[in-house]
């Protein structure tokens, strides 16, 4: 575990150092001529109108919710997938497939429900 995660930590530190070096280099080499007009929010040339606290399309929340459910489902598939080989060599593949089909059926019923309810339409 230690030998596997240490390199990940080192890659992380290399990434941080790399980012810091390049941002520092551009800070050192780049000019700094602040100007109130330059620092305004870009809106195609006209002065910014209204606030950015716009109302979000409710579909985005629905997508986030569905992502939580289905990503969890994908993650829950992995343990079964890893053990499938053992079931196969024990001659119980049909049993394992049946089990996961029940799990997937529940998920698919959920997907069909969202589909029929119009949760997947973007209009």
């Amino acid at each position, binding site marked *: 575990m230690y030998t596997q995660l240490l390199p990940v930590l080192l890659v992380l530190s*290399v990434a*941080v150092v790399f980012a810091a070096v390049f941002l520092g280099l551009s800070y050192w*080499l780049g000019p700094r001529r602040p100007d109130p007009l*330059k*620092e305004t929010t870009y809106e195609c040339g006209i002065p910014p109108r209204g606030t950015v606290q716009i109302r979000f399309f409710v579909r985005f929340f629905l997508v986030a919710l569905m992502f939580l459910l289905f990503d969890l489902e*994908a993650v829950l598939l*992995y343990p079964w997938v890893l053990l499938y080989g053992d079931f196969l060599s024990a001659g119980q593949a049909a049993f394992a497939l049946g089990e996961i089909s029940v799990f997937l059926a529940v998920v698919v019923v959920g997907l069909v429900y969202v589909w029929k309810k119009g949760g*997947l339409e973007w209009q």
Partner: protein
Amino acid sequence: MELFANLLGKIEALSSQNVLILSSLIMALIMALVMAACAIVFTWMERKVAAFLQSRYGPMRVGHWHGVAQPVADMLKILQKEDIIPAEADRTLFTLAPVVIFIGSLLAWAAIPFAPGFIASDLDLGLLYIFAVSSLAVIGILMAGWASNNKWSLYGAARGAAQMVSYEIPLALSTVPVVLYTASLNMNDIVIAQQGGVANWFLFRDPFLFVAFVVYFICSIAEVNRGPFDMPETESELVAGYHTEYTGMRWAFFFLSEYANLFLVSCIATAVFLGGWWAPIPGLPLAPALNFIVKSVLLVFLHMWVRWTLPRLRVDQLMYLCWKVMIPIALICVIGSGIWLMVSGQAS
């Protein structure tokens, strides 16, 4: 004498630990260099491919031969650009966002096996780790869009996040059939299981795996936000999407990460479906790393070909494709491969 032996043992233990740290550090540095090289090679390649597909020349002047030094010139120019932070922006999040995206894409490189033994971290959970770490990009995009305090950025970030989280599901599901065969998430094990020529690549093991590869490829285009799925940065609607307000080096980090992620998804496809470092015909005297890189670069070329050929999708078409086409197909592939394995009775 006993004391001496004890001491020697301790030194040996210490030095093996140091060797581990040193070799991992070298691998980490190599990964950072590979990432920088990707940005340099692929920006030039993208311009040339785009130019070729549109009957133009592309960059021709810098570096004498077909503008090969253009990316270097661009980088020197970007380094000297002014770094503008809008007055309305949230400074902390604004400065952190590009770094978060960059770290996410570099971290994922840790588990890519370029050649036997040439892997920064031989993680047992390799495939899952790559998917987990590469979704850091979603957080970076949301940070950038929110902190910019700009309508274009916010819309781009919302679209980008919705698209990336949606396509992550079929992307993860399409690699599940492969794990059925290997019974391991370790990237090395996955590649080793494909030893011995084209016929043993997971792409051709069964028809469901072939379909899974097609699903993976389409979803990987959406995952790296490139055309025809470049909704988050549609220049005709949203100016530049979530990085509208970014300039200079910070903007370059978004660009760097985009090309690094492009190569990353191609490398995952190579390792998982296309036999990794194995030569197409067993016994061909080719270096393993060369095999791996040539396959990945060909996939990158395919990505560019698709980008410059197909028109952009609408948001509703994008969501339709993901939830109503890709996810059902990926689920069918999982069950189909399971049945195929059971009937043919082959597992490695």
